[in-house]
């Protein structure tokens, strides 16, 4: 479902003396249906960079990144957008929303974009927000003023509203209390059970041990100093 072949990436900082920072070289991995794979490695090893490349948020310099048959390295923007709508979900660490939009709408949006009937989309959003213990009195408010933990949970609810066949998770259990952490882990297990391919970054070792089938150490892809 998710496959990387010989992917490399470097950053060129044009305004800082054209500094070249090589990040990844020869990165390769595969995630099958129903599998959860963890990216590991020290801070700065390129875990987030790799994940962002799989989402098409960062460009790859070489190689192929194929998700559900679409190669993100060569795909046109509109094909990447279609892939993100239909097949590829991403739970980032930050919630980025239009001010004023109520939490329920934020969570239901991925479903509404797929033209799911409004009532059904809202019902699913309510179910997830309830599950993640967001008090009902907050549902009609914009999440911009919520606490960090609440925003994180809204973000997770949004990421799980639609059953994406491929899912990227960036620290999904960070800053969560034990109760909500357990809810998120069971959401991940449910997604695996229905066949989703999941690629994630988990600093929480216990969570990783529970939901991940294997780990890939990203430092294996660190370019060797010339």
């Amino acid at each position, binding site marked *: 479902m998710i496959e990387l072949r010989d992917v490399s990436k470097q*950053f*060129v*900082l*044009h*305004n800082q003396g054209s500094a070249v920072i090589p990040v990844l070289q020869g990165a390769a991995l595969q995630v099958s249906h129903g599998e959860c794979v963890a990216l590991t490695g020290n801070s700065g090893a390129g875990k987030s960079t790799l994940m*962002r490349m799989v989402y*098409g*948020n*960062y*460009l790859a310099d070489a190689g192929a990144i194929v998700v559900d048959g679409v190669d993100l390295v*060569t*795909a*046109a*923007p*509109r*094909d*990447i*957008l279609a892939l993100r709508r239909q097949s590829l979900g991403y739970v980032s660490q930050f919630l*980025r929303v*239009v*001010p*004023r*939009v109520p939490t329920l709408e934020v969570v239901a949006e991925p479903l*509404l*974009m797929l033209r799911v009937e409004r009532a059904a989309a809202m019902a699913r959003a309510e179910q997830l927000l309830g599950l993640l213990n967001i008090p009902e009195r907050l549902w009609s408010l914009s999440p911009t003023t919520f606490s960090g933990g609440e925003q994180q949970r809204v973000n997770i609810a949004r990421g799980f509203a639609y059953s994406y066949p491929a899912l990227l998770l960036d620290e999904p259990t960070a800053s969560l209390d034990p109760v909500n952490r357990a809810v998120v882990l069971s959401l991940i297990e449910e997604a695996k059970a229905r066949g989703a391919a999941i690629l994630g970054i988990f600093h929480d070792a216990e969570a990783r041990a529970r939901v991940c089938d294997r780990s890939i150490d990203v430092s294996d892809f660190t370019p060797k100093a010339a």
Partner: protein
Amino acid sequence: MKDMTQDTDVLLSVRGLSKFYGARIGCTEVSFDLFPGEVMGIVGESGSGKSTLLNCMAGHLAPDCGEVLFAGRDGDLQDTLKMSEPERRMLGRTDWAFVHQHARDGLRMNVSAGGNVGERLMAVGARHYGAIREGAVDWLGRVEIAEDRIDDRPTAFSGGMQQRLQIARNLITGPRLVFMDEPTGGLDVSVQARLLDLLRGLVREMGLSAVIVTHDLAVVRLLADRLMVMKDGLVVESGLTDQVLDDPQHGYTQLLVSSVLQV
């Protein structure tokens, strides 16, 4: 980059568009395709040529060379630059809309709010007073202008309300393509947020395509699917909006992104 999908359903195709002001470059060699439902953002600082480009596309300025092809309802691409003046005016009243930065450029200031909105319907043939009034009330509601303000003139409105009225006037005829020039420029941040929320909702509900020129990167991040970055009349970088903003490749884009003040 060659588009992988067939260009059969392209809505707008801009090819090699250039405009010079004497020896000075307005914009040069701009080419891109826009598909139904897509929002394209164009960013760059003042004088980068983004407004020149927008005005050339919308037919307000005559470019020196290039083509602006638009798919009519029959699906055939037609070069709008070669259309006769009445044809182009008709297009501007039906399938195209233009939202000006300054609402007063897009409104008739001495006509009531309802008149401003209803006038567009009459221009495409609506004659029944009740139906026009009803359409106007509906659209004023959609842009959050209370019904009891329908007989007020735009001069009695705040800047944010004028801008929303301009949007209602433009969208009531159900255009397929909207050009927007700094639609949130000059408005308070809180008013901007409301307008952005409104625009996003309308774009999604109506399946609108839009070309938005702005210098505000936050605006394009929230509204645009794709982004073009202009400098000195040239497109220096283009791609998926979040990719261009998060992993900019060109030195100028890197400078632009890193110059934004964090709040």
